[in-house]
């Protein structure tokens, strides 16, 4: 690696100069005793699994702002195209905007080719965009869909690397969800088994990770249909107030 860095004028590509400025500002602000506003993050457990006829995507519904729950029922499974959906973890605004931009570009591409878009195309567009921003766009995504070549599932990291696998988990609760997958995943599952597996994986994330919680959303994509089940399971219902005390529903 070079030890002498010669300053050269930037030649194309995104300019990250403001990031250095922001770091300096944060340092100054912290010295005075204040803190910068925290971005709303989806602490999150998201996962996906390929079964016999298609793909099942799952997500929790908690969005956090620092240590406070900002949204108890946010939607983390985003539409990309009629046959492709994408779960997003990381900074909520980043996942929302990134998936919307790629969804829009993919629709134009699909109109241009005259064909249903392929999951590999969406993957290529997402990874090239995230790599261009060198990880500053905090979007960790689980992309799944069914196209002319069958069901596909990708995990996409904020720096722009992707993995194509039969089962993936992302987010702060991904370790808990992956533990469930590693134990019970089998190739060529039936739809009901796959839905149950994804539900249990997200539940593991919800109950064992502080950044994930509330309900479980599922999205089942096959060649013939898309089932967007929101919510699939309400595991954290608020208790009913009786007399003066709050009776809590039992946690399963």
């Amino acid at each position, binding site marked *: 690696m*070079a030890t002498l*860095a010669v300053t050269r004028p930037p030649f194309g590509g995104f300019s990250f100069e403001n990031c250095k400025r922001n770091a300096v500002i944060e340092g100054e602000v912290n010295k005075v005793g204040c803190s910068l506003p925290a971005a709303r*993050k989806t602490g999150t457990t998201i996962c996906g699994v390929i079964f016999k006829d298609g793909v099942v995507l799952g997500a929790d519904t908690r969005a956090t702002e620092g240590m406070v729950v900002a949204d108890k029922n946010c939607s983390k499974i985003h539409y990309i195209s009629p046959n492709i959906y994408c779960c997003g973890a990381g900074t909520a605004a980043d996942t929302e905007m990134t998936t919307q931009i790629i969804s829009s570009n993919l629709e134009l591409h699909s109109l241009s080719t005259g064909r249903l878009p392929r999951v590999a195309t969406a993957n290529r567009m997402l990874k090239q965009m995230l790599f261009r921003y*060198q990880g500053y766009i905090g979007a960790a995504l689980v992309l799944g869909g069914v196209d002319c070549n069958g069901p596909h599932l990708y995990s996409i990291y904020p720096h722009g690397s992707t993995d194509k*696998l039969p089962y993936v988990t992302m987010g702060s609760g991904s370790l808990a969800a992956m533990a469930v997958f590693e134990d019970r995943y089998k190739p060529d599952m039936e739809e009901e088994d796959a839905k149950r597996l994804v539900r249990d994986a997200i539940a593991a994330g919800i109950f064992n990770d502080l950044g994930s919680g509330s309900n479980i959303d599922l999205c089942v994509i096959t060649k013939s249909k898309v089932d967007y089940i929101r919510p699939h399971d309400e595991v954290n219902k608020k208790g009913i107030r009786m007399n003066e005390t709050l009776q809590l529903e039992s946690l399963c």
Partner: protein
Amino acid sequence: MAAPAAMIPYFGQQMSSKNDLVPDWTRQEVSTGTTIMAVEYDGGVVIGADSRTTTGAYIANRVTDKLTPIHDRIFCCRSGSAADTQAIADVVTYHLNVHSGVIELDEPPLVETAANLFRASCYRYREELTAGILVAGWGGVSFKKILNPVAVGGSGSTYIYGFMDSNYKPGLNKDQCLELTAAALSLAMERDGSSGGVVRLATISEEGVERRVILGNQLPKFSSH
């Protein structure tokens, strides 16, 4: 890959240090810790890699394919940052297709051409990239003999230099090369925390590419403890 990482300041991590709910490793870059190697024999080349990709201490993918095809008979072995090496490999694949498609050559592209394309990208953006790449393949008649018949790379390669020095002899045939590669990778995976999973092998020759996977329990064993 500790030395290069210290040189490049990570602004992203400073900004989100306040949030305790999101663990550290979710913000770290995905890296292929890795052991990769390539051995030339008379008639082709054997390449091999482990299959582990890590984000900090968590294994993001335990069955990664680090042997990426660039052209029909040219492969690259990737080590370093997963995002950087995937992006460079995609760019070089595109350039090679333009090179042999648009420029209408009769023969397949030379391995040297692919290696030079990699070198151009890696050198131009050397301050921003973390990538170590082995390029290997069978590329028609070459006017220059390859300098080294054996190459190893990645974080796990340091553990097998001694093994390679003592066990490699010129004039090995294809099966001996495969055995040597599998043995060397198993030894490196045993000792290096960032390498593991399965061993992926590929043989590239005039006839084509032959891919093979050796699962964890089928790896050659060396020590009894």
